[in-house]
């Protein structure tokens, strides 16, 4: 017999290294003789879309078509240290450094090109370059950003450990087979506040991927360690969701503007996976009246728990 349940879970997530750790990003932006803008920034795109975010922030700030902006993001000899692709910090921290660099060059661009229309033509940039040269303007500008956090006291916890915070809530519907313990996740609605969303379709991708990882965390994934040795080192025994396991996911954003973020943006990568697992676990309880306290909620655990509780 299959039973349906519905579950909710809300989470928050402080982005950045936090705890007063020097969380710095740098970027340079340069105009060249070929009529290109070179944006040089350490942004490791692990699949997240970080490169696109930097590109878009630069294009927006410079009012220059993004196809005229060339990105350099892969070589330590050609870019400054911007910290790691972690802690959901790239959009906020590194995005702010890109914004800063672009604002600096923009002041000088505005001296020569002060129109509302976006610059789409290489020729315009080549002419700008010539004017920069003849007026002895700097060609390359460095942007910098440092996040503001403070160290927490180890005895009291007092401090401002992270900034900014991203918020999210998930609602999950599951179907539990009471005779086998098998859980199918049917539907997930995910609503997030990650500030201004720089690229909605990429952000949605982060959320759906996060739901997938959260679902794995809730009902499938577990590294089995025996005497320090991992017993499931392959895809055949470390189980992650397939296309046939995924629920329908619907994503919404409420964009609570963060004034310190680039165009009001905050981080999203990690928050995207947080509320899904607890929402699924709560939905399982709602379906069968059994609350697991040891995870993941595999068919083994659910079925035995049902039996123990005499449900």
């Amino acid at each position, binding site marked *: 017999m299959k039973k349906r349940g519905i579950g909710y879970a809300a989470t928050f997530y402080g982005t950045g290294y936090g705890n007063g750790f020097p969380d710095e990003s740098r970027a340079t932006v340069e105009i060249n003789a070929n009529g290109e803008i070179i944006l040089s920034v350490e942004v490791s795109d692990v699949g997240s879309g970080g490169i696109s975010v930097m590109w878009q922030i630069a294009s927006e700030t410079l009012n220059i078509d993004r196809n005229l902006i060339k990105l350099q993001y892969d070589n330590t000899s050609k870019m400054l240290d911007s910290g790691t692709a972690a802690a959901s910090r790239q959009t906020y921290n590194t995005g702010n450094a890109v914004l800063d660099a672009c604002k600096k060059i923009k002041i000088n661009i505005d001296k020569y090109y002060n129109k509302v229309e976006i610059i789409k033509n290489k020729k315009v940039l080549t002419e700008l370059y010539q004017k920069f040269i003849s007026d002895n303007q700097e060609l390359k500008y460095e942007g910098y950003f440092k996040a503001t956090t403070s160290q927490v006291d180890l005895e009291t916890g007092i401090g401002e450990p992270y900034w900014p915070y991203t918020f999210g809530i998930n609602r999950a519907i599951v179907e539990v087979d009471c*005779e086998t313990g098998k859980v199918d996740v049917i539907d997930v609605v995910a609503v997030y506040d990650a500030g201004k969303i720089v690229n909605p379709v990429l952000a949605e991708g982060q959320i759906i991927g996060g739901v997938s990882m959260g679902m794995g965390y809730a009902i*499938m994934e577990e590294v089995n360690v025996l005497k320090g040795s991992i017993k499931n080192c392959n895809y055949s025994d470390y*189980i992650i969701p*397939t296309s046939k*396991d995924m629920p329908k996911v619907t994503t919404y954003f409420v964009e609570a503007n963060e004034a310190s973020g680039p165009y009001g943006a905050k981080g999203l990568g990690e928050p995207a996976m947080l509320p899904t697992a607890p929402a699924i676990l709560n939905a399982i309880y709602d379906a069968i009246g059994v609350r697991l306290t040891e995870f993941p909620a*595999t068919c083994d655990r659910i*079925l035995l728990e049902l*039996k123990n509780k005499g449900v």
Partner: protein
Amino acid sequence: MEVLDVLKPETLTEVKSLFTEYQNCKILAGGTDLLLDIKNGKQSPQYLIDLGNIKALKKIEKVRKDIVIGSMVSFKTLSEAKIIKQYFNSLYHSAKGMGSPQIRNLATIGGNIINGAPAADITPCLISLDATLVIESAEYERFISCEQYFIDYDKEKVRENEVLTKIIIPKKKRLTGFYKLGKRNSLAIARVNTAISIEVKQNKIKRFAVCLGAVGRYPFRVLELEKMVVGKSLDYLLADEVLEKLENAVFASIKTRKTMPFKKEAIKGVFKKALENAYGEVIL
């Protein structure tokens, strides 16, 4: 030891002559398991005989009162063949749910049987359907029931100079069903699976077969239960004492294993789902 050559015969006769020509051969029948075993050093043949080019082994045929399946029929072919779906619902479902599309294109029914994995999906079906395996060598041909093959595995398993060529399943009127409980919905290895076959006469069970997989070294039938239900109505299959027999069978098979408490509970649900599958998901 390294594999020196991969031989690619085009007829069964050629295969048999290769047995006499080459020593330390292994049959390549898909290879989803064999190639990994060789890579991991679990098997070290000197020659592989790739059966991929033998058309005669890729057919599914109606022969008198039987359906004869060539050992090199892929899971994809098996799951798409009308004749299989028509006569052996259980086999159709187990083939369709095995591995992934990529694996079903490559893996063959013969390879799966010979590999003898405890959690294989089609073996319980074949056993419950009274399938017979045809194993050939240069000198002889032997017929053995799939059930007996696994009961007497150490004695009966295919030897180095033998090749499994056909699987024969009697084409009888029966309700058959299969269910696999896996950890996910694709690329899943069975935690527990069950195949059943029911012959009904005048609303009573005339003959019943149930085979359980992934609850022992090899899939096995629960004979005591099969006898007990003969002459009863179909409803009886859901009786507590029936389910209890299943539970006991699983307990007896894997007493000391950590998964036993779960599997003896799960078998009841899996069995019910196999029944649902046999009845066409409508009756129950």
